[in-house]
């Protein structure tokens, strides 16, 4: 195994900005290239067509995946460059990683870890925890966040072109399997508690209107998926309330 270089830390820091130049042309490509560049500095760099420059150019090609797991591709591609893997193989490796890293990351983080902690935070605030719940959310979330970024980069570097084996790691497989039910349970519990918290200062008639409007809004979003978003519903409700409140009440 290649020794982890001192620039490993710099690559990790740059990974935190992997989406900094997000665009529809190369998606995360530039960010991935920037994060990979410190790991490529050991390659021969003499001349305009050096292996270092060719690797930097390859690193900035199109790439799209979950940002927290992009380090897996960064580490694997950099390691493959050092191991002298053919350029076509490295391009294929990057392309092959996009789908799985996006899918696993979305399930693990956007549909698991993040809403799970958000739901617990909402429930805690509703039960009177106040700002300490928010601090707890930030600390716990980012322990998982930073650990996952570090793990992804180090696993990618460790495995190189055989990085597919890292995708079967229990952190990803069991994590995604556990995060789903935990998220569902936490947010399910948070919803009625949050409703009670927000409705606390309302009078009896307002609570009745709130219940009816929330149910109607929920059904409308379910019946018109894609067309009626939460934002449109909220703007519509607010507009109607302003008109009714101004003209009638």
């Amino acid at each position, binding site marked *: 195994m290649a020794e982890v270089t001192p620039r490993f830390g710099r690559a990790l820091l740059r990974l935190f*900005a992997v*989406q*900094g*130049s*997000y*665009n529809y042309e*190369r998606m995360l490509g*530039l960010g991935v*290239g920037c994060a990979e560049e410190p790991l490529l500095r050991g390659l021969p760099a003499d001349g305009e067509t*050096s292996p*270092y*420059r060719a690797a930097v*150019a390859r690193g900035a090609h199109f790439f799209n995946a979950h940002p927290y797991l992009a380090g897996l591709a960064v580490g694997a591609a950099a390691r493959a460059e050092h191991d002298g893997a053919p350029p076509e193989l490295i391009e294929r490796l990057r392309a092959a990683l996009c789908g799985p890293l996006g899918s696993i990351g*979305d399930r693990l983080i*956007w549909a698991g870890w*993040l809403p799970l902690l*958000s739901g617990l935070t909402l429930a805690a*605030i509703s039960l009177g925890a106040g700002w300490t719940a*928010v601090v707890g*959310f*930030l600390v716990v*979330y*980012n322990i998982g*966040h930073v650990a996952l970024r570090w793990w992804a980069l180090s696993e990618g570097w460790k495995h190189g072109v055989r990085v597919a084996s890292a995708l079967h790691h229990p952190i990803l497989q069991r994590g995604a399997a556990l995060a*789903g*039910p*935990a998220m*569902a*349970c*936490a*947010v*399910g519990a*948070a*919803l*009625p*508690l*949050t*409703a*009670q*918290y927000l*409705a606390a200062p309302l009078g009896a008639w*307002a609570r009745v*209107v*709130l219940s009816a*409007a929330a*149910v109607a*809004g*929920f059904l*409308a979003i*379910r019946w018109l998926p894609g067309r009626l978003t*939460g*934002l449109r519903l*909220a*703007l519509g*409700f*607010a507009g109607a*309330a*302003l008109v*009714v*409140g101004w003209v009638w009440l």
Partner: protein
Amino acid sequence: MTVESFLALLGWGTLVGIDLVSLPQMMIARPIVAGTVAGAILGDFETGLKLGVVFELLQYDILPVGAVRYPEYGPATVAAVATAHAAVGALGLGLGAVVGLVTGLVGGITMHLMRRINSRIVNGASVALESGDPQVLLRLHVGGILRDGARAALVTALGLALAWTVPPHIIGVLTPRGEMLLAVAAIAAALAAGAAGTLRLVGRGPNLAWFAAGLGGGIVAATWLR
């Protein structure tokens, strides 16, 4: 709102806007965090928490996968809290939500525009990028982050301008019932979006039973604690 508060909120909203996508995605862009800190800046934790909860529920409607377009609720929550602080009570929550929703809508549009601008810049620099010059790569990438910072600052400034100018025009126009109705509308939409977004994530598989169990537990706890 004092000039010091305005500048602090502008700075906070900018950080929040950058955190959403560019750097470092540590979730200060989540409304519950953005709102609480905005409330702390204004010395009004309760308003910050309340609007943070409202926009956090609205955020459940969004799954930020791929290049999907969505409203930006971080700076929106900062603007919402500033508005609510200026117009206390039920009107504050409702009016804050309206200003926040408009700011979030504008934020989402600016993100899409910025990605198109980034695409054009990257496309124009493709020859230089293919040469493998690391300085070109770094310059383009840092340029993207700076553009996002400027975008986030503009969106926050717009939201704060609305927070400054809108309340005086609304206070006194609505009756107390009308003010309450506006707050009810915001809360109802947030609860509906939160529930619908969560069910979309949960799906019809085994997680649905876990959601039902959580919901039941939450209802029991809410009833018991009433």
